[in-house]
């Protein structure tokens, strides 16, 4: 079993805000991240797949094709967008990177051709903050 990681990036706006709470409570819990007019980040997405190399190509999955798939299924929906407003799979969810990484998994995972398996998504929000998700199984 070999693990292969492809890194892509997108730039987006968001805010952390729970509409069921008062403005005061949102400020208390989310601080500056609750700014009503949004703020933004350069996000980096690390997509790790696992599998055995194909005996003929030597690949688990063509890394360039993986990049194309990530761009088509995920990056095009997220890049230069407002994550709270513009992204169909984040509608009605709190826009934390925890929820975002789980949403990205659901978008991407069904499109990986068997026997390729999605192993891990790592989503980097700032130089100091990132999350990892290994799926729900």
């Amino acid at each position, binding site marked *: 079993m070999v693990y292969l990681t492809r890194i892509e990036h997108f730039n987006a*706006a968001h805010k952390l805000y729970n509409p069921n709470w008062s403005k005061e409570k949102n400020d208390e819990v989310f601080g500056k991240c609750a700014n009503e007019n949004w703020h933004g980040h350069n996000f980096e997405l690390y997509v790790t797949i696992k599998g055995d190399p194909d005996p003929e190509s030597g690949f688990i999955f063509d890394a360039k094709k993986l990049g194309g798939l990530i761009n088509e299924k995920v990056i095009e929906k997220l890049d230069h967008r407002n994550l709270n407003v513009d992204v169909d799979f984040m509608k009605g969810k709190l826009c934390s990177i925890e929820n975002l990484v789980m949403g990205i998994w659901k978008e991407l995972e069904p499109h990986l051709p068997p026997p390729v398996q999605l192993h891990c998504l790592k989503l980097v929000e700032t130089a100091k903050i990132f999350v990892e998700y290994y799926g729900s199984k």
Partner: protein
Amino acid sequence: MSKKVAIFRKEHFNAAHRLFNADWDDKKNTEVFGKCALPNYHGHNYELIVKIVGEPDEETGYVMDLKQLSDLIGEKIIERFDHKNLNLDTEEFKNQNPTAENIAIAIYELLRPHIPKEKDLQIRLYETPRNFVEYPV
């Protein structure tokens, strides 16, 4: 012989923005600014590097106290721009496009009055790890 030394302090802020010219229609804005013109904003992790050039003080050995420089950048720049929407929340970009170029010029002008006259000041601003600007040149 000149004993000029350059010192640098690195800070960062996260902000939302969009690029558009209010005098142009949507079609022309999209043509010129592409995805950066999308109406609901996007965002970046801005990395700011402030460069000061001068001769070290004879008594302290410092060109400038880096802690004081950091506090100055925090007070004049980071508090103004961090977790803000540059188009909506800042005076500087009410009527000016918040390109990296214009942000660098604005940062220079905000800091210059607070840096001793005999020292040179230069701003380097990273909008993404791949796009950065310098002012003045």
